[in-house]
């Protein structure tokens, strides 16, 4: 399969969700000020046309292969598999973990699959200015990168708190020519950055395209971002079948912030899920622990509500005021989640677990020590979940067949090194920082 075939398969999905008004069951839809409705209609029409337009597909395929570096590798992880097996007290040969290497994308995460797609569309719509929100800065960097690549003006909204936490990414965006606007309203994090980006869009909608970074927001964003990320799952499926002699993964595991990397890798397997051959597992941030109230797990503990233009599970109080999320990983530090995940949860199409800050750090070390890969803290949540999954599903191993797991390694962890050092109370800078020796358990 060429990149073009893969792009065609990704955009040419057969599933009929959402409905024409953007609903996944009761979720999704469009809950935005009237000022934006025309722009959303325009974007929907442009995207519907682009999706099946050979010229658009070819252009996207070209950039994905020549600029982003797709297809990304599917890497067998024998030493990680062995460690996870050991942790769950099962035989090493019984666990076979594969990593879908989105960390190898240009800019270091899956986010760019979406920003390139959206910027081709923005250009076609005649928009001259690009705005985006960012939490960790990965989506901001991916947007600033694509804007530089296409020669468009770019403005990134980022919570003032995140600007402090992620100064390296702020600098990267600035080097890429973007303006970074710190947002001091509310909790000064991702959700407030998104509010401010929407306000900018409401004001400048005639000239500006808003690049939402996940499968969230009003229709058509959850669908469009999912489709641009479906390339992950389409590639992975083909690679997996080849490497495992026609066997499918038993489980697909991905972290869920807004849910774009998860939706991207899950979605092309939906018919196999329906046949009971593949199970989907999303991993939310449990922060300081679900019981602490400080987490980013709306699918576990939220209730349906409207945030940022769509109906989905949301962390909120009794009066519908949105609660603050917490996660060590800024990309999962969000009180909402994409509407299709809410639908998947209710319909039992996927199951969702969660991992605390501390557990995620162990996942990070496991990957670094066994496979020589520094994973993003977001992705480290998915890694950390593996031992729980295997321990939970030990019974399945009695059949003698190995348990095959496909893990979405959504990004690389270079951006997180400072945050991890801070968390461990280690001062970087003198070159003699004490080693971060792994515990391995």
């Amino acid at each position, binding site marked *: 399969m060429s990149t073009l075939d893969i792009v065609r398969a990704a955009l040419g999905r057969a599933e009929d969700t959402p409905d024409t008004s953007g609903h996944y069951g009761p979720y999704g839809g469009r809950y935005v*000020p*009237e000022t934006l409705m*025309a722009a959303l209609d325009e974007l929907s029409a442009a995207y519907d046309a682009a999706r099946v337009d050979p010229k658009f597909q070819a252009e996207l395929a070209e950039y994905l292969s020549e600029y982003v570096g797709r297809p990304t590798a599917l890497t067998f992880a024998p030493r990680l598999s062995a460690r996870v097996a050991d942790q769950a007290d099962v035989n090493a040969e019984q666990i076979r973990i594969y990593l879908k290497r989105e960390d190898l994308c240009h800019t270091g995460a899956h986010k760019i699959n979406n920003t390139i797609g959206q910027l081709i569309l923005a250009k076609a719509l005649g928009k001259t200015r690009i705005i985006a929100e960012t939490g960790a800065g990965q989506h901001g960097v991916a947007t600033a990168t694509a804007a530089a690549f296409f020669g468009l003006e770019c403005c990134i909204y980022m919570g003032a708190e995140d600007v402090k936490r992620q100064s390296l990414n702020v600098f990267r965006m600035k080097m890429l020519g973007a303006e970074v606007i710190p947002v001091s309203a509310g909790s000064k994090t991702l959700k407030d950055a998104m509010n401010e980006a929407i306000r900018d869009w*409401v004001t400048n909608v005639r000239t500006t395209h808003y690049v939402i970074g996940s499968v969230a927001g009003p229709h058509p964003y959850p669908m469009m971002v999912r489709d641009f990320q479906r390339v992950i799952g389409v590639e992975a499926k083909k690679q997996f079948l080849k490497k495992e002699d026609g066997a499918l993964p038993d489980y697909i595991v991905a972290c869920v912030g807004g849910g774009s990397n998860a939706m991207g890798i899950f979605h092309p397997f939906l018919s196999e899920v329906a046949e009971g051959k593949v199970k989907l597992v999303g991993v939310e941030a449990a922060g300081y622990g679900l019981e602490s109230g400080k987490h980013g797990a709306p699918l576990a503990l939220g209730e*349906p*509500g*409207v945030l940022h233009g769509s109906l989905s599970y*949301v962390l909120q109080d009794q009066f*519908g*005021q949105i609660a603050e999320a917490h996660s060590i990983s800024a990309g999962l530090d969000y009180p909402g989640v994409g509407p299709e995940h809410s639908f998947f949860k209710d319909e039992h199409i996927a199951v969702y677990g969660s991992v605390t800050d501390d557990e995620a750090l162990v996942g990070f070390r496991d990957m670094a020590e066994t496979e020589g890969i520094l994973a993003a803290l977001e992705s480290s949540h998915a890694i950390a979940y593996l031992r729980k999954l295997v321990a939970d599903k030990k019974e399945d191993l009695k059949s003698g067949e190995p348990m095959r797991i496909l893990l979405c390694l959504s990004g690389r962890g270079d951006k997180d090194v400072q945050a991890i050092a801070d968390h461990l109370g280690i001062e970087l800078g003198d070159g003699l920082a004490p080693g971060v020796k792994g515990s391995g358990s």
Partner: protein
Amino acid sequence: MRLSDAFSAASDSGRAALVLYITGCYPDKESFPGILATAAEYADIIEIGIPFSDPLADGPVIQKASEHVLAAGITTDDILDALGALPTPLGKPMAAMGYWNTVFHYGMEAYATRCAEVGISGVILPDLPPEEADEWLEIADAKGIDTVFLVAPTSSDERLQLVAGKARGFVYCVSVTGVTGARTDLPPELGEFVERVRKFTDKPLAVGFGVSTPEHATSVGQMADGVVIGSALLRAIDPAATQEQRLASVRKYLEPIRKALKGD
């Protein structure tokens, strides 16, 4: 009292209706009723803002006011209770303006019931387009609560038809492509926009977002049936001032606005 009655009454006296927005329980529970009563002397309709943590259609002034009351622990119930317990009735219809999640999460039936109980005649929900409003409309209609929808300069003719068709009470015309907030100038194409909306409805049209000076009030009052003022009024209410000072400042701001609507 229905919202439309206020428009007819104003129109009978030869002027546009004045619609004034105040964030509920701003600046605090105790001072709010007095401020509301004072504003009501000048207003034909009073809009009560139900604060939301993420008010994405609002500019800095209303954002701040919302944050201020939320930080003080004020809830939707506190505001509705305050309206139900006003020492003297305002004598003007009230509309609750708030974001959809505060209604959705409260429970549509419960919210509509409570609104009706405390004398609210209408609701304005800036992030609930008519496409998502069917269930709510059925419930609100049954309680006699008018759901006001908004139209914007970016709305296509098809959307104007749809939105104006579904609107109850009046049609809220957003003057600018933007969020709420006082502005020095109104957009030059405002008159044209209002005329365009008129083609699709004979319901009263009120123009808001950005209206702040007596001159704005005069010019908007000539093109539309109602003038909505929010941020500029909130700016006249200083949480740090004494209640006496606040009431004086509200009067000082509203006096010339109301005069300007008389067309003199």
